[in-house]
């Protein structure tokens, strides 16, 4: 469980994180979504005690991070896969953390196995690793202490599609086991298939938050019919605003039921009626963050 309340970080005139509040529940994967520079990393650094907040609090398992006894056993943290000593082997990197957190050495082999680094690869120095391998090593480090909470900043970065799928399964399993997962990404496609809840952040502020289904629903409806003109008129008559799409059909902010009723009233045959889905969410994401960017400029 991660509880963030009014978290704020100011660098001079810039509000990197502006009054961010949300909760990441156990058993769920919470996606922290936002464009580059939105404040995701700064917020995660404040959650893990590396950056002191200007104001607000972040608690993990009910306590500030710094107050956790042996935090490596409670919280698995991966903030930057590149932040590993280039001159150490992967195995040594993990063995060091195992020594400090007091987990048995057997755990090093276990997590290496979980992230799919072979003994041969684990014996090589990190400087020879690809970004994907560093990412796997970083995830291994986060899992090492058998934590209850995972905080991962852009963990899919550098992973190939198979690696992204593997990580998705891993995080789903972790959450299904009762763990709390918070992972960030600047790419919706990376996050939408794994996250149960989304917290969308732009320019330091939360611009949307909710379950993925809610956000998808809010993203709108796509409809196609045998007579778009008639349906268009019917929708407008019902007070539903529509946007005609170049390939036929149109999108609207109204939900499927409202559109169906309008179609039924007008006697138009509907051939396709669905949530706009991830494409709509992507648009929503861009729109929300763009709106925020404009506000920032005019402010």
């Amino acid at each position, binding site marked *: 469980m991660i509880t963030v309340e009014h978290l704020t970080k100011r660098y001079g005139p810039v509000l990197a994180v502006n009054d961010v509040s949300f909760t990441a529940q156990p058993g769920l994967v919470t996606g922290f979504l936002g464009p580059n520079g939105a404040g995701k990393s700064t917020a995660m650094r404040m959650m893990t005690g590396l950056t002191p907040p200007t104001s607000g609090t972040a608690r993990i398992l009910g306590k500030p*991070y710094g107050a956790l006894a042996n935090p490596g056993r409670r919280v698995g943290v991966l903030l*930057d896969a590149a932040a590993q000593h280039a001159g150490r082997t992967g195995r040594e990197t993990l063995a060091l953390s195992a020594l400090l957190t007091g987990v048995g050495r057997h755990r090093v082999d276990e997590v290496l196995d979980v992230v799919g680094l072979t003994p041969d690869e684990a014996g090589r120095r990190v400087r020879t690793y690809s970004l994907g391998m560093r990412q796997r090593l970083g995830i291994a480090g986060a899992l090492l202490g*058998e934590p209850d909470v995972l905080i991962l900043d852009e963990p899919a970065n550098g992973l190939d599609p198979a690696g992204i799928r593997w990580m998705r399964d891993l995080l789903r399993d972790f959450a299904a086991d009762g763990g709390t997962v918070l992972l960030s990404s600047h790419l919706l496609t990376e996050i939408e298939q794994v996250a149960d809840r989304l917290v969308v952040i732009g320019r330091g502020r939360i611009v949307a938050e909710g379950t993925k289904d809610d956000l998808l629903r809010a993203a709108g409806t796509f409809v196609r019919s045998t007579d778009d003109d008639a349906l268009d008129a019917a929708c407008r008559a019902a007070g539903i605003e529509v946007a005609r799409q170049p390939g036929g059909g149109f999108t609207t902010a109204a939900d499927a039921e409202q559109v169906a009723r309008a179609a039924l009233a007008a006697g138009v045959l509907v051939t396709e009626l669905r949530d706009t889905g991830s494409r709509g969410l992507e648009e929503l994401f861009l729109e929300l963050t763009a709106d925020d960017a404009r506000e920032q400029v005019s402010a």
Partner: protein
Amino acid sequence: MTTQQAEAPTRSRTDRADLTPVPFTRLAAYEWRKQLDTRAVRWLFVIIAVLTAGVLAVMALVGDGNVSYEQFLYNTSTPLTMLLPVVAILATTAEWSQRTGLTTFTLEPRRLRVVWAKLVTAVGSGLGFFVVAMAIAVVAHLAVIAYRDADASWGLGAMTAGMLLMLVVWMAQGVAFGLALMNTPAAIVVYLAVPTILSPLTMLVTAWEKVWPWVDLNTASMPLIMGDSMGGQEWAQLVVTTGIWVGLPLLIGILRLQRGEIKTA
């Protein structure tokens, strides 16, 4: 690299309430292993050992060869002062230059404890390596006894005690410089440049003859490592210069570390 399904448990369901804070001994073991497990530091130890052996070989071969054990040991001090603290610098600045601080300070958020662990382990390595220097000096002294008819003179006295004390100061200085600058090249350059600049100054600016022992750590520590008698004033000078060159940078480093963010990029 294989892509496989995760089968091993990713987390345990055991009650975690019994987790206790990381004891200092374990933190120190962690810091010590980090200090010694990189190739750079291993090579550094090899280089110091070779240099030390080289210096002693020259001493044994040049002159009449009648050199006591303690004289040999005293002359190991030059390579030790110059290079051993670099081990302490590397162990400290790696947190920023190699960006391991992100891991270190999330696993142990009590940052000041990390500083103490670094100090303890740096001093530990300094003293440990002094034992190596003693062994090299044994070989050198045995050699001059055997081949250059030197008198056996194994006694160790104030000079050795003085060097041991200074070794503690130098290693702490390495940590302090590393912490104050948080950057490997800068810390090494400053550490090596300070005595290089100050030493000729102490000789050139003779008007400051009375001032230098209160400002320059090298000057102030001379009587101690030469095994001369240390009076109240000499000790006071040593304390003051240690305060300037070890205490002050350590304080600056601790303040930077405690107040700020762990920035590694």
